[in-house]
């Protein structure tokens, strides 16, 4: 299975019925494809809509209905358009149940760096700092390593997005929960050994006697 599909299918199991969810760009946008049956979630796009949905059909794009990347989207019945102050009020104010974001690095304290690579990449933080600081639950969906080097480190080398501890890290190798005691290895990918996960992780992992295999959301593709 493709690594990204594996991550998206595992993250999809974290979505709770009736929750308000904000997805970062890239991999996180794949997650809704693998929602378990019977689960309805509402997607917020921080540029100003609650109830974002795909464009319903060819030719139905509307220039004033877009996602945070400027791409055309649609909306569910009952959607609401909101201005930027309300949008971020919802994010910071504890009204957003979950955000799923990509990551460049996560450290042993569970802090995420995902907005800049000094000297190389200067995109600006956009809404990432507000989302990681304010969402009730933060899930980082990312590759376990980059060019063979660990991305889960003792300390982040890149500027942090927030000092808030994220709730869960899902990679193609493992599910890791940052806790006050440290990073707890919760699940490993099918066919992998614990040793391989530990070897691909710079930060210390807390490993219990029995680590279950990752359970995935339905294969809908």
């Amino acid at each position, binding site marked *: 299975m493709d690594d990204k599909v594996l991550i998206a299918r595992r993250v999809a199991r974290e979505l709770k019925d009736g929750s308000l969810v904000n997805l970062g760009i890239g991999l996180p946008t794949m997650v809704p494809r693998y929602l378990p049956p019977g689960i309805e979630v509402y997607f917020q*796009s*921080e*540029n*100003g*809509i609650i109830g974002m949905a795909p464009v319903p059909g060819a030719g139905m794009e*509307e*220039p*004033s*209905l*877009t996602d*945070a*990347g*400027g791409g055309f989207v649609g*909306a569910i019945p009952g959607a609401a*358009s*909101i*201005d*930027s*102050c309300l*949008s*971020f*009020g919802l*994010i*910071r104010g504890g009204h957003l149940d979950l955000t799923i974001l990509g990551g460049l690095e996560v450290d042993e304290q569970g802090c995420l760096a995902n907005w800049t690579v000094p000297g190389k990449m*200067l*995109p*600006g*933080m*956009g*809404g*990432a*700092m*507000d989302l990681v*600081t*304010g969402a009730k639950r933060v899930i980082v969906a990312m590759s376990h390593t980059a060019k063979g080097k660990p991305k889960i480190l003792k300390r982040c080398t890149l*500027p*942090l*997005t*927030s*000092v808030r501890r994220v709730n869960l890290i899902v990679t193609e190798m493992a599910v890791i929960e940052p806790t006050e005691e440290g990073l707890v290895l919760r699940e490993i990918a099918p066919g992998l050994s614990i040793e391989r996960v530990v070897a691909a992780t710079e930060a210390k992992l807390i490993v219990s006697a029995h680590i279950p295999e990752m359970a995935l959301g339905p294969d809908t593709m």
Partner: protein
Amino acid sequence: MNKFLSCTEAVEMIPDGASIMIGGFMGVGSPHRMIAEMVRQGRKDLTIIANDTGTTGFGIGQLVAAKRIRKLIASHIGLNPETQRQVIAGEMDAELCPQGTLAERIRAGGFGLGGVLTPTGLGTVVAEGKQVIDIDGHKFLLEKPLTADFALIAAHRSDYRGNLEYSLTARNFNVVMATAGRTVIAEPEHIVPTGGIPPDAVATPFVCVHHIVGRV
């Protein structure tokens, strides 16, 4: 009172070196006619306050491509490589600000508040040089208000008085910026007789809008 101007007249009010808030999010809900006219009239050395700079040559990207921005306050320039190039080369001074903080700083400016206390940015580079304030055991970053000489607003509809209605995600920063410019100029897609926008649908009341760009 007739607030209507041509797009040319509206931009003629803006001097070189002005500070300008520009509504929109990746060019959606941006006042594209006024942006193009600023480029045409050669406006330069501008301080632009906006969520982003659009894409290359689109939206605020037109001002970037023509090198008219001296200082930028924005949250995201990732989709405009030319903005990043000018910032890294030192041709443009950029202050990057978290998106929610940017919205609230503008709101503070427009609403007569002395600043905003937000948890966003605590412990990161955003907090450098800023005051941290403890409120009942919780730490917050003090972020200062933003105002500008002009706010250029894009609306779906304006009535003859300047009551504004927005469409879907084209609403974004327009609503709050319409409170924070010393001169507020609206560029509506449609103009309807006063009363054509029901009171409950007015998102920006006419008292905030000083000028309206007409269709010609």
